[in-house]
């Protein structure tokens, strides 16, 4: 499973980083999880909760934060995936009707 491998690599690299040069690839992990999440039918509330869970906590953005690679791209990725999903679900509902 590539997602698990990436998560593990992110953790182990940071754990072994004694010089403070670790660059987090959380954004890449989140994008893979967004893809998985969108494979199942989701309610509006579920999508909102998932979106809220993407943002993590304020520590990620303070002085003590790791360097996060591409984290700012996660929301646009999520919004695009959500739009695609909603239009796909809408088409399926139309077809069923």
């Amino acid at each position, binding site marked *: 499973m590539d997602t698990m491998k990436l998560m593990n690599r992110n*953790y182990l690299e940071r754990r072994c980083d*004694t010089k403070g040069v670790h660059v987090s690839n959380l954004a890449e992990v989140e994008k893979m999880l967004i893809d998985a999440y969108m*494979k199942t039918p989701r309610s509006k509330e579920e999508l909102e909760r998932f979106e809220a*869970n993407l943002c993590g906590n304020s520590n990620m953005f303070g002085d003590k934060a790791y360097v996060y690679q591409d984290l700012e791209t996660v929301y646009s990725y999520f919004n695009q995936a959500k739009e695609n999903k909603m239009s796909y679900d809408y088409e399926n509902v139309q077809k069923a009707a």
Partner: protein
Amino acid sequence: MTIENVLETLNSSSNIENDFKELLQELIIIFNKFFPNVDLTNLNNRLKDLKIVKANKFVSNDVVDYNAVNNELLFNLEEIMKDYDLRHVVMHGLLRIITAHDNTFGFNQNDRFIALSIGYTEIITNFIIGNNSELTLFDDEVIATNLIADIVGHDVLFQAYFTHDANILAQALMDKGVE
């Protein structure tokens, strides 16, 4: 295994200082109140010769770690001097002891789910005891694990974590399309 048995074992340990025993006792009681159905036999066995080790960053870069093979609860000296919530940090370590198996803990197996196990341990720690410090632990793993919980369900993670069952977790991840 009753909670009384576990506390008796803790109190008879010669490796652990009294102050730390008191803290562990408090946390074990809190854990047991939250999850009375989780078996404490593993914890009881490990408490018998548990060692508390102050380590440097070259041994463990994390503020708290547990070596299941040597039965050592490790605290990174440099990190622990910072303003962490000590009860939170120790509860995280305690959960690793409770769920320890082979050379690892939780639903991890051959390092396949190590980051997920770390993240879930921290989520349970937050749930049981909260965190009174601005310093948090394992942020990336917590965020990713929360998202995975949204995908596979908290019940699957909970069951896999306390029964060391990586298979039900792997199956749930595959069923939900996590690649």
